[in-house]
């Protein structure tokens, strides 16, 4: 059906116009346009060529197809014919209708002309009448108009005459706006006739207006007036051509003065807070909190004043829109000074709560100001200021901690009495441990306060703070290591520039301190760093403002490595210092006497007492600081003081005597051989952080030194016997110190062996004499002990 309608339309279109695309409307046009380009087989295109179409059909279709096409075409032609006939009939009908209508119109028009003429005559008569009325009323109308003008003029004159009183009334009612309006309204008249007819009037009103101006000025200056009124006053003054700029500058100066007093106030409060801080003892926490409180109260009052300032500024902005620049300058100056005060205070030790409080107070002011004066860019400015303040705060906190640690270490340095010496090292260690761990954790919690604070300003600095804290710890521990070195008089290792090295001399360094440092380094490496690392990971992760390629600023692995090596170094240094001390003792012992002319030994030489004293001192120091080793020394606890049990090892004694009688050459070979078969004694083992390890290392070193000193001398028989006696005596007391019997025995034997080698006539003391001399010595030292303990 659709197709049929379309076809009809198309046919109609082709009927009424030759060009189907032009006449057919939009629908037909769009349908027709593709047909234009249609291939030759489309029968409806205008470029239809029957011959081509025919040949195409013949080519394309077989006979059956052609037949079918023929039938189709015949039907189509028939349809087209009927359509055409229908159209012709319809058109004919329409034509007949049109002819009928035209006939009817012709009949109606006749008779209209007479009516028209009648109408024209009536209109002409109306016009003549109206002209008549107009001329008769003209004169009267003129008169009325004149009278009206005069009245208006008279009213104006009246107004002018009334102006002074009116103005006075306005002034009384404080309706300055009206007054100014009236005055300005009458101004042209005054300008024109002021010199002649309205002279008095002009003077009077000018006086009134002067009064108005004065009042307005007063209004502007008075702070109690509402801003709108003041702003209005300025506008009015401006209308009166009053020089407003001078007013403005005056007002700004006033504001400036006001701000100055405000600043002074701040300074005073800051200074007074500082004073109280200085005067109060750092430990006096109560006082400190008082200071903080007192800090708060002035801030309370100045809150009001800053609010006022902001109000004033708001007013001024409204009053003088062009004064912004100056105001910005003023405000920025104000805040610079206030941040300056904080910055100065940060150099002192203060808590982050204080800092936060101060920053918060300022920030509140800043937001207050920012509402009024957004162009001053106060938030950005504050961000910058807070950044530097917090950075400074973090770095000063760390340097304070560093100072505290070294104080804790050196505080107990001067040892007042023998009795307190026992615990002073331990105290120093415990104190410094506490300071390191507690100080670091405190710092972290302080810094966390900074992070946890919801102040907008600090939230922006979060990443930076995290980085600074991490950097701070890294730097802190590196500095701590350097500080430790400097405390040991080894500052030049860390810092080769001699000008900065502390004047601590190596020989003035307390050995105990070195030991404390060793143990403290271990503590830092094993406990403090992991704990701090945890804390940092918990609340100071992220950051990354310095870029990920650098990694985190705090590298615990590196710090651990530094302190591990530092601990080892200090432990070795301690051992070295101690052995050196003993070494000097031994050196004196061996270089002073003439060993070749030595007299027969009568008693154990006193250097063993000194040696044992030194070792005892080492023991005291070591026991305070270092933990006990795992091996307990139970083996000797019951054999204290008995000399016979350990000395009388008959086989060794026999061997020694036997070799003595033999020729030296064979003795040399024998000892050589003996060494070959003996297990090589590992004397120089790695030192551990235990009491036993350190003491035994020191003793081993001393015995080795003893052997070396012996080797440098030449002895006669008595000299050799003296050495033999001293060594024999040392055997037991040394074993009291050390667990490693074998090593001590070995080393003592080495010493005697060395003396034996270096002796011209090596005949040892008889065992009974040896025993007797040793027991004499023991009883003597016992007596001394008793007498000293009694006294």
């Amino acid at each position: 059906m659709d197709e049929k309608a379309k076809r009809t339309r198309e046919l109609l279109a082709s009927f009424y116009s030759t060009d189907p695309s032009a006449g057919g409307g939009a629908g037909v046009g769009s349908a027709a346009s593709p047909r234009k380009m249609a291939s030759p087989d489309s029968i409806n295109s205008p470029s239809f060529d029957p011959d081509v179409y025919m040949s195409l059909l013949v080519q394309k279709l077989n006979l059956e197809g052609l037949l079918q096409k023929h039938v189709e075409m015949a039907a189509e032609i028939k349809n087209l014919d009927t359509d055409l006939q229908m159209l012709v009939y319809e058109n004919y009908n329409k034509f007949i209708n049109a002819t009928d209508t035209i006939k009817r119109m012709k009949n109606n028009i006749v008779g209209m002309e007479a009516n028209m003429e009648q109408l024209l005559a009536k209109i002409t008569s109306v016009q003549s009448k109206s002209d008549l009325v107009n001329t008769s009323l003209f004169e009267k109308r003129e008169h009325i108009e004149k009278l009206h003008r005069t009245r208006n003029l008279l009213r104006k004159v009246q107004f002018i005459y009334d102006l002074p009183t009116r103005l006075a009334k306005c002034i009384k009612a404080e309706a300055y706006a009206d007054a100014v309006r009236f005055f300005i309204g009458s101004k042209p008249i005054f300008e024109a006739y002021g010199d002649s007819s309205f002279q008095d009037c002009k003077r009077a009103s000018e006086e009134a207006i002067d009064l108005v101006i004065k009042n307005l000025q007063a209004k502007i200056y008075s702070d109690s007036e509402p801003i709108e009124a003041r702003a209005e006053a300025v506008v009015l003054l401006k209308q009166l051509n009053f020089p407003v700029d001078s007013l403005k500058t005056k007002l700004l100066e006033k504001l400036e003065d006001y701000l100055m007093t405000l600043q002074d106030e701040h300074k005073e409060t800051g200074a007074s807070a500082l004073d109280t801080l200085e005067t109060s003892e750092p430990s006096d926490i109560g006082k400190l909190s008082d200071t903080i409180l007192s800090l708060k109260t002035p801030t309370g009052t100045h809150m009001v004043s800053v609010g006022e300032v902001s109000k004033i500024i708001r007013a001024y902005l409204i009053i003088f829109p062009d004064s912004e620049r100056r105001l910005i300058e003023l405000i920025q100056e104000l805040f610079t000074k206030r941040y300056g005060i904080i910055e100065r205070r940060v150099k002192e030790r203060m808590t982050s709560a204080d800092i936060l409080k101060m920053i918060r107070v300022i920030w509140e002011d800043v937001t207050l100001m920012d509402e009024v004066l957004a162009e001053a860019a106060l938030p950005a400015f504050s961000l910058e200021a807070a950044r530097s303040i917090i950075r400074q705060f973090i770095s000063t906190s760390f340097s304070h901690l560093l100072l505290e640690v070294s104080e804790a270490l050196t505080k107990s340095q001067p040892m007042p009495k023998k009795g307190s010496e026992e615990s002073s090292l331990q105290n120093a260690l415990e104190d410094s441990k506490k300071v390191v761990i507690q100080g670091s954790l405190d710092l972290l919690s302080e810094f966390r306060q900074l992070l946890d604070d919801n102040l907008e300003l600090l939230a922006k600095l979060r990443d930076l703070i995290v980085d600074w804290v991490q950097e701070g710890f890294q730097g802190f521990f590196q500095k701590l290591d350097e500080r430790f070195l400097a405390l040991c008089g080894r500052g030049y290792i860390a810092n080769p520039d001699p000008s900065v090295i502390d004047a601590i001399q190596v020989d003035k360094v307390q050995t105990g301190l070195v030991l404390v440092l060793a143990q403290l380094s271990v503590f830092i490496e094993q406990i403090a760093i992991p704990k701090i690392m945890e804390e940092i990971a918990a609340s100071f992760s992220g950051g990354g403002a310095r870029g990920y390629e650098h990694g985190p600023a705090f590298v615990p692995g590196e710090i651990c490595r530094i302190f591990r090596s530092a601990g080892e170094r200090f432990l070795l240094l301690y051992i070295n210092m101690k052995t050196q001390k003993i070494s000097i003792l031994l050196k004196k012992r061996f270089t002073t006497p003439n060993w070749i002319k030595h007299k027969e030994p009568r008693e154990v030489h006193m250097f063993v007492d000194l040696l044992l004293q030194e070792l005892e001192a080492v023991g005291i120091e070591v026991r305070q600081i270092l933990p006990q080793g795992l091996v307990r020394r139970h083996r000797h606890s019951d054999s204290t003081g008995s000399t016979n049990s350990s000395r009388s090892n008959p086989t060794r004694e026999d061997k020694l005597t036997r070799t003595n009688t033999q020729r030296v050459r064979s003795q040399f070979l024998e000892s050589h051989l003996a060494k070959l078969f003996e297990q090589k004694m590992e004397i120089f083992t790695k030192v551990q952080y235990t009491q036993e390890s350190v003491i035994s290392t020191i003793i081993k070193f001393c015995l080795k030194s003893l052997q070396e000193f012996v080797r440098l001398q030449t002895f006669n028989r008595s000299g050799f016997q003296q050495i033999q006696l001293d060594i024999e005596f040392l055997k037991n007391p040394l074993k009291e110190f050390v667990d490693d019997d074998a090593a001590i025995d070995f080393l003592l034997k080495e010493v005697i062996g060395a003396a034996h080698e270096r002796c011209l006539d090596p005949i040892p003391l008889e065992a009974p004499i040896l025993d007797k001399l040793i027991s004499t010595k023991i009883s003597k030292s016992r007596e001394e002990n008793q007498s000293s303990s009694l006294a």
Partner: protein
Amino acid sequence: MRGASTGIVYGGLKYQARCIADVKADTDHTSFLAGTLSLKEENEVHLIRLSPPGSELVCEGLFYHPNEIWDLKSCPFNPRIFSTVFTFGETYGASVWQIPELNGQSNAPQLEQLVSLNEHTFKIKCVLWWPSGKYDKLISIDEGNLFLWSIDASNKMAKVISQESVGMLHNLSGGAWDPHDRNAVAGICDSSLEFWDLRTMKKTSSIEQAHARDVEYNPKKQHLLVTAEDVSGIRLWDLRRPKFPVKELPGHAHWTWVIRHNPEYNELILSAGTDSTVNLWLAHPPGADDSISESPVDSPKRPKDSLLNSYTDYEDSVYGLAWSTREPSVFASLSYDGRVVVESVKSYIRK
């Protein structure tokens, strides 16, 4: 003996020994002189030569020496001359000896004593030859004095040119002669290093707080020297700023006894100690690079100063150490039990 020992061992010394010296003037062979230290037996000086393929140590000569030898130095310009310091009981002395012509026989001919330095009133510590060439002067150091000798070898004459006493409070124990300056000598005092100008025989400067056992000047760079100390290990000094050491090396587990620069590669330092080891260190002298300014924090990252190798194959303390001047990659060490070990450090020398 034990383990993977790379050294060539010479076991010819029958007694304990402390001294070994490189025969500097022998340009044809790599040879060393070693002297024994036996209280009761007749002591010997061995001339030891490294056989040309470098695989064996041969005793080229064996000479009896009247007393036990505490110091032995070879003459830097005549391979047949050397000096010894010796004691017997309370007697002591120092002599310059000449090795007699070896006519194929090595069975202990007598050494020819050229001169005897017998002006000493204290126990003599060491004799120094000027290390850099032919110079007819000698320095001898005893516990209290410093002597400068003029030696006339042909006439067997020795004459004291000048003498300086350090006073009773100090105790000299050794010294070194500056190879860059004939007039500068360093002496080891109790707790300091003292420096003298030989022309005036006056002290020029000193390094305090140095308990040195041995000292040696850097053979290539002036003003630099190295000390071996009981406690502080090895320390490198610059004489122009003697307040603090330029560098510290840990040294040995016990005393560091002797220290020697490699004659050719002065950053190679050899030390021997009473912990029966010989350590080879790489320590760049300051000024060669800017490594001094670096903090020790960085030191693990910089492989510059380090222990290159530790030779532990010794039975006793090592007191004698000598680089070969002829073959700078070779050194000889002598432990107290009389064993000479020659090692090559070729693999550690920077190409």
